[in-house]
């Protein structure tokens, strides 16, 4: 509370709770979206480790694969997969907010801006899956 004077009325200042992000689902979703970057970073580390092992030869790669099969890392990577997807979806859905594209004097709809991101995601994922799974 600030000091009351004749000209400055006394007012009540509410402190924001440390747990403000639990107050509403939208806030929690925001915090999860921000936290997802930690899991994205972890997946980057895994990819770098895989690349390094691949360069060192089949023995190193097999050892890494074996390490990645541990229950803890399987669980961590499953959670990471969820967060990476969550990160991508929320990011794609936010792009129409930041981008205003006009074609023929008309503003493109949010769907028209977000959709190409999803199409590119599916096409690139399918291409990688094809390379990996063709035998």
């Amino acid at each position, binding site marked *: *509370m600030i000091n009351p004077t004749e000209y400055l009325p006394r*007012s*009540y*200042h509410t402190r924001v709770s440390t747990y403000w992000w639990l107050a*509403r689902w939208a806030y929690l979703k*925001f915090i999860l979206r921000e936290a997802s970057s930690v899991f994205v970073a972890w997946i980057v580390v895994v990819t770098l480790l895989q690349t390094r092992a691949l360069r060192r030869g089949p023995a190193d790669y097999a050892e890494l694969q074996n390490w990645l099969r541990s229950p803890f890392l399987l669980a961590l990577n499953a959670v990471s997969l969820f967060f990476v997807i969550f990160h991508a979806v929320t990011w794609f859905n*936010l792009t129409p907010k*930041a981008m*205003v594209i006009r074609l023929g004097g008309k503003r493109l709809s949010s769907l028209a801006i977000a959709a190409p991101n999803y199409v590119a995601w599916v096409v690139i994922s399918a291409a990688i899956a094809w390379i990996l799974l063709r035998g």
Partner: protein
Amino acid sequence: MANRITLEVTRYDPAHDEKLRLDSYEVPLRKEWVVLDALNYIKDHLDGSLSFRWSCRMGVCGSCGMTVNGVPKLTCATFLSDYAPGPVRVEPMSNFPVLRDLVVDTSDFLVKLAKSKPWIIRKVEKPLDEEYFQTPEQMDAYKQFSMCINCMLCYAACPVYGLDPLFSGPAAIALAQRYNLDSRDQGASDRLDILSHHEGIWGCTFVGECTQVCPKNVDPAAAIQQYKLTATMEWLKALVLPRGASSR
């Protein structure tokens, strides 16, 4: 539908109370009533000392913003029947100092609004008998942001503003962007320094709730993100191009 509903209303008397408290009132539940009607019923029939702001009753003046069941709302546009059977909790807007009951101190917003220069700035004025023409496309570029009624619900919903009161906040930035995008305006460079700093656009972490609670679909979150892009381009231009060559 039951014919009565309970309202739990925040009370605060600066002369006597050390903190906020809740008082309960039972009011008639009528299909056509909004929360503001219920508050006026309380003031007229149950407790004349209840204080709250309101004016137009039609979502234009932006005076009656409050927190209804935890969500910032214009109480003139929030139907009581949507909260049946109740109780409905009516609190002052979050993130603002409470002066009395449901009345908050909005001075901070007014200072920030003025700082963002929300008016048309001309380097050269045309003679009074000449008009500033604008095509429908040019108007369309800023129209959405011009719908802001300064109700400050976006500030009540913004956790960044709650945690960092120095943050310029959604409406002030959206209104600056409204003028930046106006073809008649020449003040974008004047606003750049005010907007593009840590407590301006870069303070925004894109929670996006300002847009969700906006009763006029202004989309302040979009205004801020779009301006981040503009400010980055200006910074890049200032870095790459010789002095004076950028639009600043």
